[in-house]
C-alpha cells in the first residue's frame, strides 16, 4: 500500500508540475495579455499608405497601448487603406480631431498606429472616423524627397495586365507584390529586359476588383523596410480614364539604390545641386 501511495503522489506531483509549467509559459512569456481584448469600440482611419502595418498591431497614445488594429482593407473609391482600430472601452475620451499616424518601432521594428490627441471638445464615437492621418513613409520616398527626386510619376494602363518600364528594377523579382496605398492588389507577372529600348519591362497582374485605377497613375519600385524585399507601388493619378488590360504605366520611378543616393549626396554637397551632376552616373535616378 505504501509503495502504491508513493508512486501515486509522485505521479500527481509530475502532472501538477507539467501543467504549472505550461500555464507559466503560456501566460508569462507570451503576448496573451496583449492579444486579449476586453470591451472595445471601433474607430476607422484612412491612410494613403499603411506600409507594413499588420492586423493586431498595437494602437498607442503617448506610447501606451490602448487597442489594436482589427482589419486593413483597400477602399477602392478613395485610393486609400481603410484601417479599423478597436480601442479599449477604458479609453473613451479621444478628441474627434486627433491625428492617427503610422509609426515604426525603432529602425527595423514592427509598425503601429499612434494617436496624437487634438483639442476638440467632442470625443470620437464608436464607428467614427479619424479624419486626420499621416501615412507610413517608405524609405525611398523619404530619401527621394530629401534628394529632390520625389514626385516622380508614370502613366498606367490596365485591368488585367499592365506594363511598366523602369530604367532599373533593382532586385525586383517575379511574384513580388504590387501595392496601392500599402495594400497588395496584384503581383509582378514578368520582368524582362527590352533589347531595343535597353530598359526593363515589367508586367503587373492586377486584381480585377481594382479596376478604378486612373491611367495616369505612377509605378515605383520600393523596398519593404530597410532590408526587405522589393515591390511595385502604384501611386494613383487624377485622370478620369481608368487603366485597362494591356495598358502601359508611363510614369515610373525606378528602384533607388542606396549607394547612388549616398554617392550623389557626397559628390554634390547639397541636394539642390544634384541635378547638374546626377544623370551621367546614376541610371537609377528618376526619369
Amino acid at each position, binding site marked *: 500500500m505504501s509503495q*502504491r501511495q508513493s*508512486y*501515486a503522489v*509522485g*505521479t500527481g*506531483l*509530475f*502532472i501538477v*508540475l*507539467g*501543467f504549472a*509549467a*505550461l500555464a*507559466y*509559459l*503560456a501566460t*508569462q*512569456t*507570451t*503576448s*496573451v*495579455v*496583449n*492579444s486579449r481584448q476586453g470591451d472595445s469600440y471601433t474607430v476607422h482611419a484612412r491612410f494613403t499608405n499603411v506600409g507594413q502595418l499588420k492586423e493586431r498591431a498595437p494602437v498607442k497614445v503617448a506610447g501606451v497601448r490602448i487597442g489594436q488594429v482589427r482589419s486593413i482593407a483597400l477602399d477602392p473609391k478613395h485610393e486609400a487603406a481603410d484601417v479599423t482600430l478597436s480601442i479599449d472601452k477604458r479609453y473613451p475620451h479621444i478628441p474627434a480631431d486627433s491625428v492617427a499616424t503610422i509609426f515604426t518601432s525603432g529602425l527595423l521594428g514592427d509598425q503601429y498606429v499612434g494617436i496624437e490627441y487634438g483639442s476638440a471638445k467632442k470625443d470620437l464615437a464608436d464607428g467614427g472616423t479619424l479624419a486626420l492621418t499621416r501615412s507610413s513613409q517608405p524609405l525611398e520616398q523619404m530619401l527621394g524627397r530629401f534628394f529632390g527626386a520625389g514626385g516622380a510619376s508614370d502613366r498606367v494602363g490596365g485591368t488585367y495586365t499592365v506594363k511598366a518600364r523602369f530604367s532599373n528594377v533593382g532586385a525586383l523579382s517575379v511574384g513580388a507584390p504590387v501595392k496601392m496605398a500599402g495594400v497588395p492588389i496584384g503581383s509582378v507577372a514578368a520582368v524582362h529586359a527590352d533589347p531595343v529600348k535597353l530598359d526593363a519591362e515589367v508586367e503587373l497582374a492586377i486584381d480585377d476588383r481594382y479596376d478604378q485605377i486612373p491611367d495616369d497613375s505612377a509605378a515605383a519600385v520600393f523596398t519593404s523596410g530597410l532590408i526587405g524585399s522589393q515591390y511595385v507601388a502604384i501611386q494613383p493619378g487624377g485622370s478620369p480614364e481608368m487603366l485597362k488590360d494591356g495598358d502601359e504605366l508611363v510614369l515610373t520611378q525606378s528602384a533607388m539604390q542606396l549607394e547612388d543616393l549616398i554617392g550623389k549626396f557626397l559628390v554634390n554637397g547639397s541636394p539642390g545641386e544634384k541635378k547638374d551632376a546626377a544623370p551621367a552616373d546614376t541610371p537609377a535616378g528618376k526619369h
Partner: protein
Amino acid sequence: MNARPQRNVVVNALAQIGEAGLFLLTLLAAVPRSLRYLRETVRQLWFVGAMSLTIITVCGLFVGMVLGLQLYYVLSIFGGTAASGTVVAIAIYRELGPVVTALLFAGRAGTSVTAEIGLMRATDQLAAMEMMAVDPIAYVAVPRYLAGLVAMPLLCAVFCALGIFGGHLVGVTWLGIDNGTFWSNMTATVDVWKDVVNGILVKSLVFGAVVSLIAVYQGYTTPPTSEGVAYATTRTVVASSIAILALDFVLTAFLM
C-alpha cells in the same frame, strides 16, 4: 506477426508501418476495457513521466543555456542582443522543446517499455495472462501507451520552462543583457497559439502518440529471444528518431 521474411527494405518498412497502424487500432479498441486497470496506467505514468523528469530538466536547462550563449555571440555582431529572449523562446517552443523532449523520451522511456514488454513476451508472461483471462493488450499495452501520450506534453512543458530559465541564466545573469528587455521582447513577440500551443501541445502530443506506439508495438511483436528483445529495443530508438524528425518537418509545414 513475428515471422519477418527477408524482403525489400521499402516493402519491409511499409509492412511495419501498416502493422503498427493496425496495432494502434487494436490499442484504441482496447481502451474501454483497460479503464478498470486505471491504477496500472497511473503507475506507468509515474514510470515514463515522473521518472523522466531528471533527464528532461537537466537537458532543458543546458539546451537553454547553450542557446543563450550562442545567440549572445551571434547577435552581438549585429548589436541585437536584446532580441535573444525572443529567439530563445521561439526556438525552444517551436522546435527544440518538442523535438528534443521526444528524442529523450524515446531513449529514456520508449526503450524500457519495449524491453519490458519484449521480456514479458519472451518469458511467456503475456501468454500466461491470456490463460488467466486477462487481456494483455488492455492490461499491458494500453496503460503504457496512454501514459506516454499524457506524459509527453507535460515533459515538454517542463523542458521549455527550464530552457527559458537556462537562456535567462546565461543571457541576463552572466552576460548582462537587460532583464526587462529580455522579457518584454519575448512577451511582445511570442504568440500563445502559434508558438506555445502549436509547439508544446500539438507537436508533443503527436510525438508522444508516435513514440509510445512504436515502443509498445516493437515490444509486443518482439521475437521471443534475447536477441529479439535487444533488436526490438534498438529499433524503437531508430524508428522513433526518424519518425520524430520527419513528422516535425510535416507538422511545421502545416502549422506555420
